[in-house]
């Protein structure tokens, strides 16, 4: 075995020596594979980076969740410009009750009521965006707790005046002052800051992350008791009344496989009770599947482009090897006369081609790793180099050497030594 291995190493070394005889030619021949492999690795890294980012955002929404938002219907939007009109739309407490109790696969439901209220901490006065919700919210939108505690079922049951600030809200309202236990006024009523929680920003697919631009959480029961359901809305000078019971309901399904059927059930139920389309449902899982399908399509397109460039690279190698065989006909004749078998001639030329294409593969790999780094640095696009995107092109470059080297090698072995020795 040791002898065998050293013989292979020797053959590879002989191949390298032969390629070094024509450095420029070998280098130019290699370029096809270099660019082929380089572009495959780079494209995979960019594609992987883009889809990973999208998938992560969607996963933040929770793949087991269904998010239902209230939506002002188009008719309401039109009539709301008239004064002394009250728009009534959106999700209701009853919807929340029905979803909680009627669907066997629904594990938890978190309602959310969004209000804006003038708030005061010390001398600092600000309009806060407040979410009235239940303790389930913090399980369905899990975020790191920075200080204190979130409110629990007890707080909801007792209408307690407890407020959980988001990190964002705490910065705005409290600045650097001591936080937990701090009394704040919301719309004239006193609340106590019981905790501070991290929040996320941005979009996931086309769904808003539930806690973006939220300053504080307050028990839903307390919000209803203190502020009721009717609010003024100021839009470009006119004041309209709006009655929206719930702005958002987040539903958690016990198993991923029931998400779509449960979503369909909820949709049918809502259609029964809402005459207007004043809500919109988003299923992160569906988005996730869509994103994954997009990624697959993207990979197929990339794969096709890459295989064309690798094919071109392979043809380039084959072309040069065929020329090389013709050029070295006499050498082949000498080797055959001395006693080389056809198979030994084949392996000599095949090894040369494989060495060439593999070397090209390695150079291309280096290029394919550097390019995404440059892209990330300058274009701030995330790129991810996976093990698979490194190993696959290397195997492909070895494969190219074998596939495109075989024909020239067989041609070399077919050379008739008598004729080859007379070849000038």
């Amino acid at each position: 075995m040791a002898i065998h291995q050293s013989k292979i190493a020797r053959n590879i070394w002989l191949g390298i020596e032969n390629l070094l005889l024509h450095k420029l030619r070998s280098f130019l021949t290699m370029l096809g594979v270099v660019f082929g492999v380089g572009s495959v690795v780079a494209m995979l890294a960019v594609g992987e980076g883009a889809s990973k980012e999208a998938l992560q955002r969607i996963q933040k929404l929770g793949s087991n969740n269904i998010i239902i938002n209230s939506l002002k219907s188009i008719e309401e939007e039109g009539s709301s410009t008239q004064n002394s009109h009250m728009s009534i739309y959106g999700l209701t407490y009853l919807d929340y009750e029905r979803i909680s109790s009627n669907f066997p696969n629904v594990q938890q439901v978190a309602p959310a009521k969004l209000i804006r209220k003038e708030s005061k901490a010390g001398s600092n006065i600000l309009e806060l965006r407040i979410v009235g919700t239940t303790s389930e919210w913090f399980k369905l939108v899990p975020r790191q707790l920075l200080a204190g505690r979130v409110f629990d079922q007890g707080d909801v049951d007792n209408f307690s005046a407890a407020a959980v600030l988001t990190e964002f809200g705490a910065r705005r309202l409290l600045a650097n002052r001591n936080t937990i236990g701090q009394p704040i006024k919301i719309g004239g009523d006193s609340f106590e800051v019981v905790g501070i929680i991290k929040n996320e920003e941005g979009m996931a697919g086309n769904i808003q992350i539930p806690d973006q631009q939220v300053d504080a959480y307050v028990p839903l029961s307390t919000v209803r008791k203190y502020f009721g359901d009717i609010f003024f809305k100021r839009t470009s000078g006119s004041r309209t009344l709006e009655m929206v019971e719930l702005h958002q309901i987040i539903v958690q399904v016990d198993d991923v496989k029931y998400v779509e059927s449960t979503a369909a059930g909820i949709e049918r139920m809502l259609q029964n009770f809402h005459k207007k389309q004043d809500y919109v449902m988003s299923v992160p899982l569906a988005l996730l599947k869509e994103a994954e399908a997009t990624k697959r399509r993207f990979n197929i397109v990339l794969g096709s482009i890459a295989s064309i460039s690798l094919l071109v690279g392979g043809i380039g190698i084959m072309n040069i090897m065929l020329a090389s065989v013709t050029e070295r006909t006499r050498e082949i004749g000498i080797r055959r006369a001395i006693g080389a078998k056809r198979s030994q001639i084949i392996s000599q030329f095949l090894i040369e081609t494989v060495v060439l294409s593999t070397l090209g593969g390695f150079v291309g790999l280096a290029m394919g790793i550097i390019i995404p780094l440059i892209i990330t640095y300058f274009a701030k696009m995330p790129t991810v180099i996976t093990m698979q995107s490194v190993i696959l092109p290397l195997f492909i470059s070895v494969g190219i050497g074998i596939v495109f080297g075989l024909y020239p090698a067989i041609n070399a072995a077919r050379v008739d030594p008598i004729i080859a020795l007379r070849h000038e």
Partner: protein
Amino acid sequence: MDLVTFKNIHKVYEMGAEPVRALDGVDIGFQKGSFWAIMGPSGSGKSTMMNILGCLDRPTFGQYFLEDKDVSKMADDDLSEIRLKYIGFIFQSFNLIPQLTVQKNIELPLYYLGWDAEKSAERAKVLAAKVGLETRLNHRPSQLSGGQMQRVAVARSLAVDPHLILADEPTGNLDSKTGDQIMELLTELNKEGTTIIMVTHEPDIAAYAHHRLHMRDGKVERIDSN
């Protein structure tokens, strides 16, 4: 005892309507340790004779025994093996591999024999010394004179201790002085016991051999011996 025996060897090339009888029934034995020159005008069949002797070609008809082996029906790979182990070639145009050094050229048959690098290098040095090229081991053929190149070819042909050396016009590309030096080298090898068969059309070169075989129209015309 004969090293090489030809029994009614025919070689017919089908070219056009008329088949060409390059060898037309050759019966001859070449004794072990003998030194032969094959002579004849062009088209007499001496090249075909050399190709068949060298196992580069197979006879159309007849039997060729190398020692006790019938080589005439062997498969391509087996012929390669015979060439590798039994036969050393020396050509008119030297036929060294230009990109390999003198040492690597001499080692070439050993490489196909599967020798390891160290042993091969040692053997190559011994052989280079034998032909007086021990200082040229790392030169490429292009850096050598014609006589030196032919010496490398002789050293290469000796690498595997062949039973038979086939020399095809070995002095054809050399001036007469260098040619004589090569012939002296071959004579020395023959004295050491190697059987040599050489093709030449120069009578003074053929004079080095013990036997001269004159060919004409694919047949043995006559043999004269010293």
